């Protein structure tokens, strides 16, 4: 015999969601992108990044 914790006519009466086991989902993080650790255009940064505009690496690591 099952018992309900909410009274008859209460907010949960007949409307309880079935139990769903918690799930762990992982989201991929790309460390070098996330920490601004690379440059997309030339692999370097600063004044030596000749592939970037006007001696500056203005194209970020995408």
């Amino acid at each position: 015999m099952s018992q309900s914790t909410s009274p008859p006519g209460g907010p949960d009466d007949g409307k309880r969601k079935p139990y769903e086991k918690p799930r762990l989902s992982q989201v991929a993080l790309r460390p070098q992108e996330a920490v601004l650790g690379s440059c997309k255009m030339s692999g370097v940064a600063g004044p030596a990044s000749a592939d970037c505009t006007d001696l500056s690496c203005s194209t970020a690591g995408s």
Partner: protein
Amino acid sequence: MIPGDPVLAGPRPSGFGLDIAGIRVTVTSEDPAIGLIPTGTAAKFATSTEAADLDIHVGWGSPSPGAAADLLFDSGGGLWRLYNERGCHRFVLTSPVLGPAPYQDATFDPSYRHAHVRLRRDVFLPRVPLYPLEYPLDELLMVHLLSQGRGIEIHASGIVTGDGRGLLFAGQSGAGKTTMANLWRGQPGVTILSDERVILRSEGGVIWMYGTPWHGEGRLASPGRVPLAQIFLLRHAPENRVMPIAPGTAVARIFACSFTPFHDAAGLEFSLRLLSEIVAHCPCVEFGFRPDDDAIDFVLQSLPG
């Protein structure tokens, strides 16, 4: 007081200002041999050198961590390290092309209102004006300023539609940000805020999306802003398809496309709180798209209201 910062005397030196996402930075030097200019797309964000959130002084020097500095964070790719020296943050920048010695460092006082940049003279061309905030320094300082309760930088392209709605297309490398920006390019009334980086801020109950100077292969960058209407998490697909995402998952996936100071617990906490607020305000969907003009019509038809 920042260690190594020279005492300024006399009239205000020349330089330039930047306004990125409403955050103002001034860059000046008291050394007449140093010419300062914003280059590339940073020039689009140039402004006066008046009242700024951050004042940066630039000079020649010997960039180094400092004898008493503690390492706080290492980017791992050989580009930058962050040290704590007597309560100040110091970013030390290196490049494989320039050898193991740092070519530049930048020391910020604890409030991040004042900074001193030291440049290694031999790596810069003599008598050529320079931009002392080359990547990654410009983004690093902005990421830290944003994390102090101001906003968050997202790895995304930002579009303003012809009827003034802000659409954010987020994704890691290869997801299609520049491809998507190029599809919108040239459409009537459309503005591309960036094909690579946008900044989100919550101001007056509105989530604003700002353009940044940091572009992708499309070299698309604009200093405008627009209220954010919808977030699309990009992936390439054989057919156009939009799928709703639960708020918690949306926060996690946008966080994976965000730039935050990973060494700073308070900054991380603010970033996650802001992302939760953003997702509560703006619908977030996964967008599998086929890279042709049909994708634009598909997006416009999928927008609410």
